[in-house]
C-alpha cells in the first residue's frame, strides 16, 4: 500500500468516466487562473457577477440538451425554440396586450408541442432525431420570423417584471444567506438520515467524518460564492433560478423512477423495454422536457435583452448549449452524465467568451477557442468510453 494508491484509484475512476464533474471543475479553475493571469479584472466580483448572469440562457438550454444526451439523442432546435418563445412572449405582451404570464404559458405549450412532435416522430416512425430536429430548427426559425413580423424586432417595456427579473433583480444578502443555510442544513440532514437508514438495514455506510467533510465542503463552497459575489451586486435572481433548475433536474435524474428509466433507455433501450420500462413514454417526456427548458431559456433571453429579435436563439446559441453540455461532462453516447454538467459547461463556455472580450478579442477568437475546447471534451468522452469497454 503506497501513499499514491488513493490517487491511483481516483484516476482509475476518472479515466472510465465515473467521476465526470471533478475534471471539469479543475478545467474551469485552470481556465480562470489563466484568464486572471492575463487580466486580473476577470476574477473581480463585478465581472464574475456578469459571468454568472451571462451563463444563464446557454445554461438552461444546455440543461435540456443534457436530458436528450442522456437518451443518446441530440435536439438541434433548442436555440430556435428559445427564439420562437422569446418572439411569442414579446409579441403577445406588446402587440397582443396579453398579461405576461399568459404569454409565457402559451410559449411553454408551443414548446411542449414541438417536443412531443420530436418524441412521437422518433418513437413511432423511427426518424433520425438529429435530422428531424434540424428540420424543426428551420421550421421553428421560420415561425419565429413570422411572429416577429416585418420589423424583425419587438422591445419589451422596461417596467415589465420579466425585464426587471432578468436585468436588475439580485438576491438580497439576507435571502442569499438564508438560502445557503437552508441548503446546507437540508444537505446534511439528507446525508445523515440516509446513513442512519443504511446502518439500520445493515448496509455499509460512509463514516461520520467523511459526511462531515462533504457538508463542510458544500457549506464553504456556497459561502465563498455568496460572500464574494455579495461584495458586488450579489447573486442574480435568474442565476439562482438556473441553479435551482439544475438541482431539480439532478434530483429527477438521480432519485426518481423517471430518471432511472431515462438512464436505462440511454444505456440499452431494448434491455430497458424487456425490464418493463415504458421506453416510448420516457423518450417523449425527454424531448418535451428539453423543448420546455428551451422555452424557459428563450423567455429569460427576452428579459435580459428587453426585446426579442431575429437574432434571439440564433444557431450559435444552440451550438454553445450543446458544447456546454458536452464540455460539462455528459456523454454523447447516452446513459451517462449529470445535470450539473449544464452549469459547469455553461460557465466554461461563458468564461471563454467573457475572458476573450476582456482581452479585446473578437468573435473569431471566441469561436475558435470554444471549438477547440469542445473538440477536447468530445475526444475525452470517446476515450473514456474506450477505457470502459477495455475494462
Amino acid at each position, binding site marked *: 500500500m503506497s501513499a499514491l494508491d488513493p490517487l491511483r484509484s481516483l484516476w482509475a475512476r476518472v479515466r472510465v468516466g465515473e467521476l465526470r464533474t471533478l475534471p471539469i471543475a479543475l478545467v474551469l479553475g485552470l481556465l480562470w487562473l489563466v484568464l486572471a493571469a492575463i487580466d486580473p479584472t476577470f476574477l473581480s466580483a463585478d465581472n464574475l457577477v456578469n459571468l454568472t448572469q451571462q451563463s444563464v440562457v446557454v445554461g438552461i438550454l444546455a440543461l435540456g440538451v443534457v436530458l436528450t444526451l442522456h437518451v443518446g439523442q441530440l435536439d438541434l432546435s433548442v436555440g430556435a425554440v428559445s427564439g420562437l418563445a422569446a418572439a411569442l412572449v414579446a409579441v403577445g405582451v406588446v402587440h397582443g396586450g396579453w398579461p405576461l404570464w399568459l404569454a409565457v404559458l402559451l410559449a411553454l405549450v408551443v414548446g411542449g408541442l414541438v417536443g412531443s412532435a420530436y418524441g412521437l416522430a422518433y418513437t413511432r416512425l423511427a426518424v433520425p432525431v438529429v435530422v428531424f430536429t434540424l428540420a424543426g430548427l428551420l421550421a421553428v426559425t421560420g415561425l419565429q420570423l413570422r411572429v416577429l413580423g416585418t420589423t424583425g424586432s419587438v422591445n419589451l417595456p422596461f417596467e415589465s417584471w420579466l425585464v426587471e427579473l432578468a436585468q436588475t433583480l439580485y438576491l438580497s444578502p439576507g435571502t442569499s444567506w438564508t438560502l445557503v443555510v437552508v441548503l446546507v442544513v437540508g444537505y446534511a440532514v439528507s446525508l445523515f438520515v440516509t446513513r442512519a437508514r443504511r446502518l439500520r*438495514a445493515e448496509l455499509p455506510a460512509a463514516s461520520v467524518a467523511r459526511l462531515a467533510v462533504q457538508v463542510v465542503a458544500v457549506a464553504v463552497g456556497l459561502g465563498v460564492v455568496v460572500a464574494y459575489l455579495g461584495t458586488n451586486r450579489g447573486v442574480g435572481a435568474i442565476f439562482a433560478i438556473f441553479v435551482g433548475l439544475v438541482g431539480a433536474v439532478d434530483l429527477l435524474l438521480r432519485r426518481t423512477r423517471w430518471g*432511472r*428509466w431515462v438512464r436505462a433507455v440511454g444505456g*440499452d433501450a431494448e*434491455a430497458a423495454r*424487456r425490464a418493463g420500462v415504458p421506453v416510448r413514454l420516457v423518450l417523449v417526456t425527454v424531448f418535451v422536457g428539453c423543448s420546455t427548458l428551451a422555452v424557459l431559456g428563450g423567455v429569460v433571453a427576452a428579459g435580459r435583452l428587453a426585446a426579442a429579435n431575429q437574432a434571439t436563439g440564433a444557431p450559435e446559441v444552440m451550438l454553445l448549449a450543446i458544447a456546454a453540455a458536452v464540455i460539462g461532462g455528459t456523454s454523447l453516447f447516452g*446513459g451517462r452524465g449529470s445535470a450539473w454538467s449544464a452549469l459547469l459547461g455553461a460557465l466554461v463556455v461563458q468564461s471563454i467568451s467573457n475572458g476573450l472580450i476582456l482581452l479585446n478579442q473578437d468573435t473569431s477568437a471566441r469561436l475558435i477557442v470554444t471549438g477547440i475546447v469542445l473538440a477536447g471534451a468530445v475526444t475525452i468522452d470517446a476515450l473514456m468510453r474506450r477505457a470502459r469497454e477495455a475494462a
Partner: protein
Amino acid sequence: MHANEVVAVVGDNGAGKSTLVGVLTGALAPDRGEILRDGRPVTLGSPAAARAHGIAGVFEDRALCENLDVVENLFLGHEATRAGLLDEVTMERSAWELLGQLAARVPSVRVPVAALSGAQRQAVAIARSLLGAPRIVVLDEPTASLGLTQTAEFLALVERLRSRGHGVVLTSHSIVDVQAVADRIVVLRLGRTNGEFDGRRSSYEELLAAVTGAGVTR
C-alpha cells in the same frame, strides 16, 4: 413440468428452442397447440401475462443495462419508492438478500454491470427474474457465452434454484452442460419433439443421436 424440476431443451440450430422459449415467456404467439397450467389451458399473450402466470424468462443477451449498477438493474421497472423518491436503502438491502439466496458472488451491488463477468451478469439477470416469485424460470442459452469455471458456477446456481422450489427450463446447444444438471431432457429437432430422456440415465450418445436425427428415437 413441476416445482423442483430442471427440464433441459436441447437441439441443433433451427430446432425451435428459441421459439419455444418465446412462446413460454409470452414474447411470441404460438401458431398451434396449447399451454396447460395446472391442467387448464392458458394464453400467454405478453411477457407480463406470462409473468402473471408465474413464468419468468431470462434471455441470453441484452437482459441488462450495462451503464446501470446491479441494484439499478435488479429493480429496473419495479423500483421501490419512498415519498416519491427512489428508496435506495430498501432496494440495496433486498439486492443483497436476493443475491445471497443464489449464493452469487458479486463484488459490490453498486458497480456498473459492465464491470461484471458473464456468470455474474447471468446471476444478476436470474436474480431479477426471481423478484416476482415465479414458479418457473425459463433460461434461454444461459451457458452460450460462459467459460468453463463460469459454467460450473452457473450450473450450481441452477441447482440452488431447483432446491428453492422453482421449476427451471433451460435451452442449450451443449449436451454435456445439460446432463450435469437436468432431471429431464427434451430433444427438439427441426421444430418437433424428437425424444424425451431421463436426465440421469440417458447417455451422451443417445442424446446426440436424437439431436442429429441419426439412429434410434423413442
